């Protein structure tokens, strides 16, 4: 057994001794113990040590609160309403942060300075001052995956093939293990449950299911939402209908992320409906490629607007805005400077995390050429450069490094990001693609890492031309909103990778779009003609809304579009002819001159405006398209239109949106079934399966 394997195994035995294993693991350990005397002795030792320690700690004498403090708490219990501890004998140091933990986080500032010490092969990072270390995240002893190692002596092609093969096998073996664990979990337990050696205080009777303790991610701990585990999602409220007389302009930033779709696929595949806030409708719609024609006039993208009847409310209209990014042929790709920033903390061990990522990286490296450079930075208890920027002509040493990555240790994403950016900056390729690719299960130690500082760092670096992509892995601890935010600020994209096919889609098939930005800060502003549209609602994009003034403000950051990418946005529109203008109007203003639009006779339904910048530009360019409603029925719309509408209604059903109208799973299936088109990669067929799953899970 190698050292790290022995460590892992002993850690499992320790967990067993303390009653921490689930039934399947316990059964497996007990099977081993039946054969192993040394194993049994090890367990007896652990229990004896644990008992000594527990006894010693129990004897520590605790303080109690001062009487006035206890009185303040009693008073709060009595009236059970929000109350400042003003009766306390002391000042209240918490007033500034009691508005919520989001603000509290801003106070827990991350104070670190990265010392970059570079000799021939490695760079290490350290905090400057231990005194501000969070007691829970100080240096960790058990990390195995973060020390630099010299490359192996004989880097032959045979070695590379062997490395590739090991990565493949490791992933396959991990998957098999997961399947077995599932089988054990279903089998009735033969052995009696092992008793923990340490008597637990009464706390142990508390339910121990997973749930979302928001404190750790710095999101609002006072949130009323109870998740399933420590995954966290920001709350999303569906965009409401707005009257076009009051709000003629709708402004938002494009979003090409698709993570929400693969995340919900993971939930449904596991037999659960996703939490409402994990469903971002625009990401579901944008998961699918659409057959919009690419630009022919030299613009970075083409714009296609289509309007037809809204399928979930037949008296409404549905407008689809579709963008298609210019495609870049493989041989005209600019050179790339990629820095993988990989989370090798202990939680990345399961087959669907690090082993899957390693497989995915192998696939990508195969595609890259001598013009491309790859570096690998890992982070766990501390961070290190595992592979300095290396041209892809040296595939063997890249593949070797990928093969040697191991999980173990705790996470501090903040330091790793610093280090990755410094590697990217040192190897910057002018006119090339410079990108940090962060791969994690989201276990950022935001306890010390201030999200605000991280975001600022990422924004700064994006301005200098180093963009960020985020790949999310695994489940149970996914900090979905954090990752989306980071990618967003880094002019990048966020994808959730739940299986090898998804890894291939993101890193290989869509490599162009995922890695090569062709326009940045792409904003859309739609002006509705109140004479034609009484009210409208943007479907999804809730966290991408911009103020109308932001549209012309080139300092305001917005979304990016990659080579060959399609971006789709949908509006539900209440025609002016329909009496049910959705939103109650405010009383007419008494002192304002009446502002009847001068062009109210115009047949146009809306005007679409877009602004974008070249990837290295600072000044935006404006495109304007007036659009008239051709009065088309839903069944006469294109396949792409009907499919996008089906996906949007699916999202509204999962979100239980107040605007879902007559949407139901059968209708979604029917619309999607009739709009499968060519579907070369089978994405749309897979969608049908997911809808059926959701339908049966929701009991419809």
């Amino acid at each position, binding site marked *: 057994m190698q050292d790290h394997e022995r460590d892992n195994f*002993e850690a499992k035995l320790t967990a067993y001794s303390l009653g921490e294993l689930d039934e399947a693991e316990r059964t497996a350990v007990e099977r081993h113990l039946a054969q192993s005397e040394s194993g049994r002795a090890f367990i007896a030792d652990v229990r004896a040590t644990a008992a000594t320690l527990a006894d010693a700690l129990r004897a520590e004498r605790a303080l109690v609160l001062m009487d006035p403090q206890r009185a303040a708490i009693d008073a709060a219990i009595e009236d059970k309403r929000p109350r400042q501890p003003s009766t306390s004998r002391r000042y209240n140091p918490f007033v500034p942060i009691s508005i919520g*933990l989001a603000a509290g986080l801003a106070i827990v*500032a991350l104070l670190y300075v990265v010392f970059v010490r570079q000799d021939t092969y490695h760079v290490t990072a350290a905090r400057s001052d231990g005194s501000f270390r969070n007691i829970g995240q*100080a240096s960790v002893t058990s990390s195995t995956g973060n020390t630099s190692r010299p490359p192996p002596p004989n880097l032959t092609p045979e070695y590379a093939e062997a490395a590739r093969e090991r990565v493949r096998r490791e992933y396959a073996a991990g998957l098999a293990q997961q399947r077995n664990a599932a089988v054990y979990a279903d089998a009735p337990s033969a052995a009696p449950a092992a008793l923990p050696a340490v008597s637990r205080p009464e706390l142990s009777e508390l*339910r121990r299911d997973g749930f979302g303790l928001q404190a750790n991610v710095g999101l609002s701990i006072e949130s009323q939402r109870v998740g399933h585990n420590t995954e966290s999602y920001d709350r999303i409220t569906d965009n409401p209908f707005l009257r076009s007389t009051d709000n003629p302009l709708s402004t938002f930033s494009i979003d090409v992320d698709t993570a929400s779709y693969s995340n919900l696929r993971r939930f449904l595949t596991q037999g659960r409906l996703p939490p409402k806030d994990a469903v971002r409708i625009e990401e579901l719609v944008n998961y699918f490629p659409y057959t919009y024609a690419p630009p022919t006039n030299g613009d970075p993208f083409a714009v296609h607007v289509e309007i037809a009847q809204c399928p979930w409310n037949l008296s409404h209209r549905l407008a689809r805005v579709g963008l298609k990014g210019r495609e870049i042929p493989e041989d005209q790709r600019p050179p790339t400077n990629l820095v993988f920033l990989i989370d090798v903390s202990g939680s990345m061990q399961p087959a669907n995390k690090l082993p899957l990522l390693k497989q995915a990286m192998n696939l990508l490296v195969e595609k890259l050429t001598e013009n491309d450079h790859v570096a690998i930075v890992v982070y766990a208890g501390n961070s290190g450069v595992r592979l300095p920027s290396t041209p892809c002509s040296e595939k063997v040493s890249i593949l070797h490094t990928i093969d040697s990555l191991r999980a173990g240790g705790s996470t501090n994403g903040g330091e790793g990001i610093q280090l990755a950016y410094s590697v990217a900056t040192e190897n910057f390729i002018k006119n090339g693609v410079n990108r940090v690719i962060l791969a994690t299960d989201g276990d950022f130690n935001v306890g010390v890492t201030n999200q605000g500082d991280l975001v600022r760092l990422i924004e700064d670096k994006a301005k200098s031309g180093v963009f960020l992509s985020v790949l999310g892995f695994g489940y149970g601890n996914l900090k979905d909103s954090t990752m989306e935010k980071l990618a967003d600020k880094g002019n990048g994209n966020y994808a959730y990778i739940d299986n090898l096919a998804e890894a291939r889609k993101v890193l290989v098939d869509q490599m162009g779009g995922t890695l090569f930005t062709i326009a940045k800060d792409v904003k859309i502003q739609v002006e509705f003609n109140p004479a034609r549209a009484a009210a409208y609602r943007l479907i999804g994009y809730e966290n991408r809304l911009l103020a109308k003034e932001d549209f012309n403000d080139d300092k305001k950051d917005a979304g990016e579009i990659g080579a060959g990418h399609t971006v789709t946005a949908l509006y539900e529109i209440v025609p002016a002819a329909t009496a049910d203008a959705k939103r109650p109007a405010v009383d007419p203003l008494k002192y304002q001159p009446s502002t009847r639009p001068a062009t109210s006779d115009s047949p146009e339904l809306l005007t679409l405006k877009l602004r974008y910048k070249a990837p290295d530009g600072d000044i935006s360019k404006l495109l304007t398209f007036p659009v008239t409603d051709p009065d088309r029925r839903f069944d006469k719309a294109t396949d792409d239109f009907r499919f996008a509408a089906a996906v949007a209604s699916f999202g509204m059903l999962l979100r239980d949106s107040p605007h879902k109208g007559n949407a139901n799973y059968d209708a979604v299936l029917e619309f999607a079934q009739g709009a499968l088109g060519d579907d070369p990669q089978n994405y749309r067929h897979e969608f049908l399966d997911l809808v059926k799953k959701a339908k049966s899970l929701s009991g419809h």
Partner: protein
Amino acid sequence: MIDRSKPNRTNHDGHAPGHWLRDAVDRFERPLLLYACRLLRDTDAARDAVQETFLRLCRQDPANVEPRLAEWLFAVCRNLAIDLRRKESRMSAVDEILAETQPADSPQPLAEAEARDSSSLALHLLDRMPPNQQEVLRLKFQHGLSYKQISAVTGLSVTNVGFLIHTGLKTLRRQMTADATART
């Protein structure tokens, strides 16, 4: 969809509202103070953090917090302590803490003398471990939290918590054995 239909237990067993809160304060006052003292190394600051933790608890919906009360309290207390420590950057008042957290000094029967020795040795060795390892070991063996609960409190992964506890116990065991050998 998430099941939000858990019964609101505020009034179960005929207790008046607020009863669960009083139970919680009684049960967790000392454990939280021990914990906060370790984080802050200042008894007054620790009392402030714990007071504020309970005041925040009073503002929570019991149905939300009760099933995960221990983790909630330790996590909130921890965050408050970290905020406070950052703000004040207090120098540690080690003497004060030592004075208030020493093992009970009641007369010991002879048979317990040996155990008492290994107790003080264990505490001494624990004090020499990295702070995060101490914290995890204390949450486990002083406060009885499970790996999962500790992970929820500290933000470390469950695997990581397991590793810290495993290596911590291993260190203790090795050094205590060495000490016993040295004495014979």
